[in-house]
Every structure is written in structure tokens, then in C-alpha cells.
């Protein structure tokens, strides 16, 4: 079936289209720095977009929940075995991606007879110099690094616009409250920039008020202000409540 190179390239191209179509409705997840660490946030109809991977690593995701879960568990296993066998200082996203999950995802994507992973992943990390780092991993294993923050979304236009805004915003000088507010604003503005890409796109919330009404805002921080070893903390409902009230 794939004995001619063209057939294989065609299959890969079809696979890209298939995965992108499946991810089209994926809601944005933003990861940005703030004065006291890094913030990861996103709205979701079902909770399960933002997770803790290791002491200083957070994960944001969109896509099929089963695929997100499988990759999340693989990351957790790799991080914890490495942290135990060597040191927590040896557990970094760059190592987990470059030597662990990214090559495996690429291989998976190019094995066209196997089901592809329907995911996009976003990582935030605070390194041991207390500097924030951001990474984005695509379903085909391609990954990128960012200094000022990053976003993933199923809608390319939306993603590009929000990414541009993140690059232009000095999130690192904002307090957590301000950064969360600004990230929510970008989420809402991003919706306006994106053209509906699916038939039922108009059924999804496009304003903050609708999003707060129908979905859950998931948010977590990697805080450099804590004395604990584990920097990850879920943003508490009382920290989100003022935004919710203001959006109404």
C-alpha cells in the first residue's frame, strides 16, 4: 500500500488533516509568567485540562481525554523515575520532551496504520534559577520553546493571535490577579479573532460571561513565592470569583 513514497506522503498529509479536524474545537490554554511564577489557565466543559507533572512542571492540554491521559501518565512515570534515580534537578521539560515523549510521538504519528494521538500539549516550568520556561508540543512530536509565554488552541487563527499578544504583553511584571485577568481578556479577544471553523462553533461560549456560566475556568500556578519543594498550586475558587463576578 505504501510501497510508493507518494502514497506514504499522501497518507501523512491526510493524517495531518484528520488530526487537525479532530482538534478544531480544542479550547485555548494559556501559560504566562507573572511576578511570582507562572500561570496556566483555560476554560473547559469538563475539568481535565491542567495538571501537575513534577515539582516545578505544569501541563496544559487539549484533545482527546484518553490520549491526554496516556501521555500525562507517561510523562509522570518518566519524571518520577528520573527524579528518584537521579535527582529532582535532573527532571526538566527539555529532557522529557527531547529524549522521551517527542520522538515517540513523531514515530507514532508517522506510523500511519496506527491511531494518532489527538492532542496538543503546553508546558510551563520554573527552572532552578527561578526563571519561567514555556514549551509547546504538537501531536506530530514537533516542539517549540517560548520565553514570554505560550498558547495552544485547536483554532490556528486564534492561537496565532493570542501568541502574538502574549509576546507583546509584559506578563512578568503583573501580579497573579492581574495576570489572570489579562489572560482571560486574551482568551475572550482571541475568540473574536477566530473565524468559526466548525458547524457547531457558534454553540460554544465566545465571551467570558458565557464561558464562566457554562464552563469551568481551570487555573494553576508554579509559585516561586512558596518555601515548599513543590511549586504547583491550583488557583483557588476565591481567587477566580472576582473575575467571574466582573464578567457578568
Amino acid at each position, binding site marked *: 500500500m505504501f510501497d510508493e513514497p507518494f502514497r506514504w506522503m499522501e497518507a501523512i498529509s491526510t493524517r495531518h488533516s484528520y488530526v487537525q479536524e479532530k482538534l478544531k474545537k480544542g479550547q485555548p490554554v494559556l501559560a504566562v509568567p507573572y511576578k511570582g511564577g507562572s500561570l496556566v489557565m483555560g476554560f473547559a466543559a469538563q475539568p481535565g485540562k491542567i*495538571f501537575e507533572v513534577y515539582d516545578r512542571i505544569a501541563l496544559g492540554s487539549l484533545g482527546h481525554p484518553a490520549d491526554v491521559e496516556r501521555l500525562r*501518565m*507517561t510523562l*509522570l512515570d518518566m519524571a*518520577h523515575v528520573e*527524579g528518584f*534515580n537521579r535527582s529532582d534537578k535532573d527532571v526538566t521539560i527539555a529532557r522529557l520532551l527531547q529524549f522521551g515523549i517527542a520522538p*515517540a510521538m513523531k514515530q507514532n504519528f508517522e506510523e500511519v496504520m496506527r491511531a494518532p*494521538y489527538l492532542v496538543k500539549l503546553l508546558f510551563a516550568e520554573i527552572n532552578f534559577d527561578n526563571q519561567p520556561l514555556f514549551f509547546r508540543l504538537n501531536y506530530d512530536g514537533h516542539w517549540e520553546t517560548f520565553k514570554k509565554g505560550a498558547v495552544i488552541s485547536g483554532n490556528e487563527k486564534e492561537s496565532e493571535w493570542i501568541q502574538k499578544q502574549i509576546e507583546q504583553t509584559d506578563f512578568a511584571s503583573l501580579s497573579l490577579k492581574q495576570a489572570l485577568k489579562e489572560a482571560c481578556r486574551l482568551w475572550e479577544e482571541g475568540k473574536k479573532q477566530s473565524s468559526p471553523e466548525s458547524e457547531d462553533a457558534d454553540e460554544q461560549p465566545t465571551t467570558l460571561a458565557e464561558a464562566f456560566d457554562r464552563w469551568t475556568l481551570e487555573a494553576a500556578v508554579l509559585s516561586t513565592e512558596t518555601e515548599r519543594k*513543590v511549586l504547583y498550586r491550583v488557583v483557588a475558587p476565591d481567587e477566580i470569583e472576582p473575575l467571574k463576578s466582573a464578567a457578568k
Partner: protein
Amino acid sequence: MSDKTDNYNNGSGDFIDLLERSGYSWPKAIAGLTSIDKAALTQGTTVLAFHFKGGAIVAGDRRATAGNSIMYDRCDKVIAIDDYSLMAIAGVPATAFEMARILAHNFEYYRRSQLQPLSTEGKIRALSKLLKDNMGLAMQGVGAVSPIFASYDKKEAKPYIYFYDILGAQFEIQTHTATGSGSPVIRGILEYEDLWGDQRLAERDFKQAAKLAIRLLQTAGQFDSATGQARPEDNIYPVIASITDQGYRFMPEDELAVLFQESTKRK
């Protein structure tokens, strides 16, 4: 990807199981070992824990010995396992530190993978299981550990203190406990303080509790050569930690230096 993932998780949240599948094995009893020079083994003493108002205090001296030799005077025998759990070790540090490392990864791995913290009961049993797995070495006299485990249960809003014997039996402590070679000296004082002191131990605030812990460890060091007394001139103080509804907290050195002077001042 499937090969990689198949080698790893099975979704149980059990880190020890994951470690074993990754090639790790707990040291077993050594076949044919008839005798060992126990004086050559590094040992650690003395640690204590008791309930105070709002939490539990866990403290330890800093000395590690091998027979009559002082091996180290800056040993940290109170170890944070997770945000709400502390373990204090007495016995062979090589084994005890390994247990603490496994437990720390175990609890965090469970919490992160299962998206909920391990129950306090589960935490308590996890240490018991490690001690049982270590029975062979403990019985041969080369790896005995006698720990104290303290954890704050957020759901119950209550601190728990457990003492373990070297074979893994666990005992819940209502008031106070101590272990290690200096413990006989201070157990009596703790009991006396709880029954006939100015206040019950559980009614004392953190500062009063910390002062008592400092005095107890100084006293243990007076009568037990394997317990190290503080050396303020070298900034060596005992480790004083607490767990409350806010999680664990280790008393910083600058606070300890002041409290140590206050606690050891003669009347």
C-alpha cells in the same frame, strides 16, 4: 509510544510498583552473612514527636555515629515527605534516607497520577510496608530503622503521629513518642511534662513546644554520647519542624538561634 508506556504505568498510582518495573529492587537479606561489624555502621539518634496545640512537632538532634566514632554532626533526621507529612529517622541512615526518598516519590506520584492525595491511612501503611520489606536486613543488624511518622489529615483537620518498630508494626501516638539511643532519657521527661507540667503537651503553643524539644534534645545529648548537643558557635542546632493545617514548616536557623538561647538559659 506504546512500548514506552507499556513499560511504565498501569494506572495504580503505586510508585514502588513502577520502580520495580523500571528495574529497581529493595535490598534483600544477604545469604550466608553470619556476622558484621556493627560498629562500622553509621547510626542516627535521637528523634521525638508530640502533639501541641494545632499540630504536631517533630524534632531531632544532628549527630550520626558509627560505634564510638562521631561520623557527622549536621545530619538532618527530620525529613519532609510531602506538604503534610514528616518522617523522623533513627537507625541506619542509608536505609532510612532511601525509605524517605521512596515515600516522598510515592506520595507525590500517587497524588499527581490519581489527582487526589493518598489517604493518611495509606501513607502510614506505605512506611510500614517498606519496613516489612526491610525485615531481612533489619534482622541481620545491618539496616534497622525505627522511624516516627507525622501527618496532618486535612479532611479530619487532625494531626497524626505514628511510631514504628523495626519490623514495621505501627502504633498511633496520642501524646508523645521518641526513638533512638537517647530516647529513654527523654521519654520519661515527656511523660512527666504531659502529666504534671504547667500544661498538657497538647495544650502548649508552638513556641512552648519548640522550647521543650530543644531542652529535651540537649538533655538527651548530656546522657547519650550518640546524641549530639547543639553547637551554636558552629551554627549547629537541632532540627525543629511542625505540621499543622498549613502543612509542614522547618524552623529557620535564625529563629532557632534565638529560641535556643532562650530555651537553654539557666533560671
